[in-house]
């Protein structure tokens, strides 16, 4: 896509000229960049490692030759060549890898995490393929003919996310080109050791058209990439291009266990070496131009300051006590209906909102009926996916990068583990490592919790595993704050990957239903507030902190504790589990000096433990008594009575509070 032409203006000499010369010049430039990076690495001027593409340069060059403004490229760990081929930004790349503020990502991303307009790379194998599919879905929804491209390696063929993506790309006919660079080695492992079946048999099995080329025949490669790109552009469906190639240098640095003779053989057929030999004069000039440009880029980067310093770490100190406001919450509909209505209301208001998940289309409308009828009301905006949680979250990431407002439903919170890589290694990282060039307004909704006899893998509360990821938020709804209002406010302000913890039992509870007399319901001023149930007229004897689906149980326990034991409890129920506002909890504990932390999930290193630690750090000596109630360290039995005995409930809370 570069407009720069170092050769094209020259008179043709030695038979190379025109576009092919430009492409060779670009390949030479890429090689020079990579060689310089290896040199800088040896001098200790780089951080981490570098995965060079020496020998594979032509792939990026050939694909870039046919892309247009508006096309979007997703690359992997070996992305320097792709990046330079597509953006021509040698200076930004070199500075980035040298950790400088002038780098394309301000030095935050480094070698594997590059981002420029229309270009994203990430270092997790296969992770970008569902993201590319999501981007392709967004491109397909728009009226232009832009496409998405995802570069993968043959090593990526071992990743499940790839197949989830291929399946969806074909089934939904998404305009995405998968370019597989087949260099025969996954890091150090020779392909026959790990690959069964054929490479192209895989996309073919999904009904995806395939093409083949190699880097030793650049002109044919250019031809095939053109065919592939145009096929995707024309059909608005996927295509799979296999490019056989060979990596002439180590996977990263010093980890080459291949037979040196084999490597040597490939050096001899290396297209760039062959070209430079055949066109000595032009080649030398190309090399000199490239060398000068890269050297200048290195010099400029050396003069630039390192990545902006880390911000002052937050002290975690509570410097403001919460402002409480009386809540007005008339008795309303069931939680599930409130969520449904809010989704519908916001989809009407905001065309960017799309829903993705398993079984969410009508007439089924989701395992818990949250999305019932929405597919009929909003055609083309509610997507039933295959059972592919990684792809669901990955599609969401791609849609979010495209500026849409995806809402992913993970049918059971337990399956969030299958989507964890997309949430943790993609969604949560994009904004920072791409230096604020993107936001990821991704919403993942999922019900947690047991007590319905679904057994060990469909009843857990796994949110603790997703707490504490910078740039994300984890929110837990409950019936004392209208979930409809919650979603209205979330859609109005979502600016980061957001995990919304719903609860299976809570779906059927009426919002703002019967409430104990003598307790005031109050919210903090946060749009997604912490809720407090304050005993009126007395200081609390005990503070109980809980969230989400535990609130009804805690309320019942608190009622009984006063009714039968005359213990006045104050309930603090945060909606934001992360980032956590400790103020409301701290304030209550300073009054009661007794703290009971209640959560349904396993207690080890969980939310309650974190709250306890923070309280002790903030106000040592404030607490006379502290206890936690959580699931015992035991899988959840399916058998009803046993499950009830195991999971925390009203009874356990009363026993512990007394």
């Amino acid at each position: 896509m570069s407009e720069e032409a170092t050769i094209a203006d020259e008179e043709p000499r030695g038979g190379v000229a025109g576009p092919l010369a430009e492409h060779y010049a670009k390949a030479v430039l890429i090689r020079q960049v990579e060689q310089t990076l290896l040199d800088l690495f040896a001098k200790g001027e780089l951080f981490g490692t570098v995965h060079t593409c020496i020998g594979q340069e032509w792939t990026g060059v050939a694909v870039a030759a046919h892309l247009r403004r508006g096309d979007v490229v997703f690359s992997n760990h070996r992305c320097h060549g792709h990046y330079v081929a597509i953006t021509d930004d040698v200076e930004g790349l070199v500075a980035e890898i040298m950790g400088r503020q002038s780098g394309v990502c301000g030095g935050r991303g480094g070698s594997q995490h590059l981002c420029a307009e229309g270009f994203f790379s990430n270092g997790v194998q296969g992770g970008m393929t569902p993201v590319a599919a999501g981007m392709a879905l967004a491109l397909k929804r728009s009226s232009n003919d832009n496409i998405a491209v995802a570069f993968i390696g043959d090593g990526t063929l071992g990743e499940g996310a790839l197949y989830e993506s291929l399946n969806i790309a074909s089934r939904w006919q998404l305009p995405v080109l998968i370019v597989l660079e087949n260099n025969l080695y996954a890091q150090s492992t020779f392909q026959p050791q790990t690959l069964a079946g054929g490479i192209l048999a895989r996309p073919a099995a999904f009904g995806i058209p395939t093409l083949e080329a190699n880097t030793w025949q650049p002109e044919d490669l250019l031809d095939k990439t053109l065919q592939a790109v145009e096929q995707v552009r024309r059909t608005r469906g996927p295509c799979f291009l296999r490019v056989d190639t060979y990596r002439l240098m180590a996977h990263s640095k010093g980890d080459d266990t291949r037979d040196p003779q084999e490597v040597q053989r490939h050096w001899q057929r290396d297209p760039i070496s062959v070209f430079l030999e055949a066109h000595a004069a032009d080649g030398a000039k190309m090399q000199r131009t490239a060398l000068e440009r890269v050297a200048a880029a290195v010099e400029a980067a050396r003069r630039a300051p390192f990545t902006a310093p880390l911000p002052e770490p937050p002290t975690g100190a509570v410097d403001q006590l919460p402002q409480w406001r009386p809540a007005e919450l008339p008795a309303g509909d069931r939680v599930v209906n409130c969520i449904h209505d809010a989704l519908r209301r916001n989809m009407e208001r905001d065309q960017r909102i799309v829903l993705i998940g398993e079984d969410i289309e009508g007439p089924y409308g989701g395992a818990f009926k949250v999305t019932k009828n929405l597919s009929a009301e909003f055609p083309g905006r509610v997507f039933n996916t295959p059972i592919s949680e990684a792809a669901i979250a990955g599609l969401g990431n791609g849609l979010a990068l495209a500026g849409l407002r995806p809402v992913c439903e993970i049918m059971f919170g337990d399956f969030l583990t299958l989507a964890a890589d997309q949430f943790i290694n993609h969604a949560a990282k994009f904004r920072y490592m791409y230096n604020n060039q993107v936001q990821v307004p991704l919403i993942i909704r999922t019900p947690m919790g047991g007590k319905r006899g679904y057994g060990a893998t469909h009843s857990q509360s796994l949110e603790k595993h997703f707490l504490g990821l910078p740039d994300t938020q984890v929110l837990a709804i409950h019936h004392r704050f209208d979930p409809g209002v919650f979603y209205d406010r979330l859609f109005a302000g979502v600016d980061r990957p957001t995990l919304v913890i719903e609860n299976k039992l809570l779906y059927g509870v009426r919002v703002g239903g019967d409430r104990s007399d003598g307790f005031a319901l109050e919210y903090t001023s946060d749009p997604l507030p912490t809720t407090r149930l304050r005993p009126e007229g007395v200081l609390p004897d005990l503070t109980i902190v809980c969230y989400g689906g535990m609130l009804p149980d805690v309320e019942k326990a608190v009622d009984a504790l006063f009714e039968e034991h005359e213990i006045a409890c104050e309930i603090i129920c945060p909606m934001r589990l992360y980032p956590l506002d400790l103020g409301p909890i701290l304030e209550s504990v300073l009054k009661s000096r007794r703290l009971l932390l209640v959560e349904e999930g396993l207690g080890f290193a969980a939310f309650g433990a974190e709250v306890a630690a923070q309280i002790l750090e903030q106000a040592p000596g404030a607490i006379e008594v502290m206890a936690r109630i959580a699931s015992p360290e035991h899988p959840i039995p399916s058998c009803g009575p046993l499950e009830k005995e195991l999971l925390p409930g009203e009874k356990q809370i009363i026993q512990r509070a007394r």
Partner: protein
Amino acid sequence: MSCKDKGEPVLVYLPKENNNDESARLLAWRVAAGTRVTAGQALAEFETSKTTFELYAPVEGIVQYRHRDGDEIAVGSLVCLVSEDGRAAFPEEPPKKAAAVQTTPPVVAAAPQPGLAVGAFMSREPVAQGRRFSARARELLSRHGLDPEQFAKRGLVRAQDVLACLPVPAEATIPGEARSQKGPQNTRILGPAAGVPYRTEQISRSKRLEIAFLRSGSQHTLPSAVTLTCPTRGLRAAAERAGMSLSAVLVYEAGRLLQKFPAFSSFFADDCHHFYQEVNIALAFDAGQGLKTPVLRRADAKSLQELEGELRELMVQYLNDELAVESLAGGTFTITDLAQEGAAFFSPLINQGQSAILGVGAELFAPEQSQGWFHLILAFDHQLSNGREATQFLVELRRRLLAYEQAWGGVHREEPFCQHCERTLSTLREIKAHLVEEVRPDGAKGQVCSLCLRGL
């Protein structure tokens, strides 16, 4: 009048509306900041625990303020200012006022002072809207036919709250340990005599307070007592003649003795002996208006005259029912004098947060005898002291009181009398006896009758 006249902004402070509220909630501003108001125009509406009231502009001018609707504002702190140009600078709040209720008190990372922190929060809490009875509270209500409306806007009402309003004796027993340190302690109430009708009266708030303090005192001490008998020829009469207050003398001498016996101005807590670094003597008195124990601060450092003056002032306040709360708090030792009522011997109760109380009994004289006696009783916490030390304290006090008696001249008679048998000169004449001058070994002069002289 306009603020133009002075050119300076007029500061408007929150007035004190009643004795209960140290702060008021700003319900709503009636004028926007920057508005020009006329004198007497309503500026804002406030709510106390009792009522709502409006605050009016004292002068004409432009209003400036920082508080927002809903803020809790301390009594006496700045609400707004009215100036001619609306650009007056807010004065620095004196620290004392600033420390009063703030809308968002910052929380320091250090360990909070328990009492202070809780106090700060309480003042922020809105008044309860409703009420809710516990099962036991409900049962008590119905059993005693109490009107639940009595507890309107009380929030959570427990059995102990109902019991506090209950005619005693009630037949209920509240088992178990009270969970809250803030509420009243649990109470064991004996059942009434079977089949005997009774009438009930409510216990006054001040009496309930007294009960709480004394109960606390007896719960946290190991009470013991020592009694010492003091011979006297009329210490009280002598003091009266000399124009001195025996109470002041007791406070004065006890104050000094407590420097020597600090264990009696101390308290026991958490297995530690805590010594007060001030001697503040509470003097229990009851002149028919209820028992009160005003405190004479730093009694060990004040002159007898100062103490007498303070006591007189407190007495006046007591009689006018004007004793301020501050003058009732902070005692480290208590003296109770029941001589007025004629009690010769009694068992004083140690007060909350103290380790001893001195009781002074009435003087007793046999008929026709001028030599009498009275009791000094020291009830003390055996955790912090012992009988021997208590006795030493009393012996020392007795010695000092006798010295006063002597200094004030003992019993005064219109005519000369025998200082041994107390017979007056006229009586002696009737039995044909006479008085002679005597000089005692200590050099003091007196008179002795011929009968006693013979007997000696």
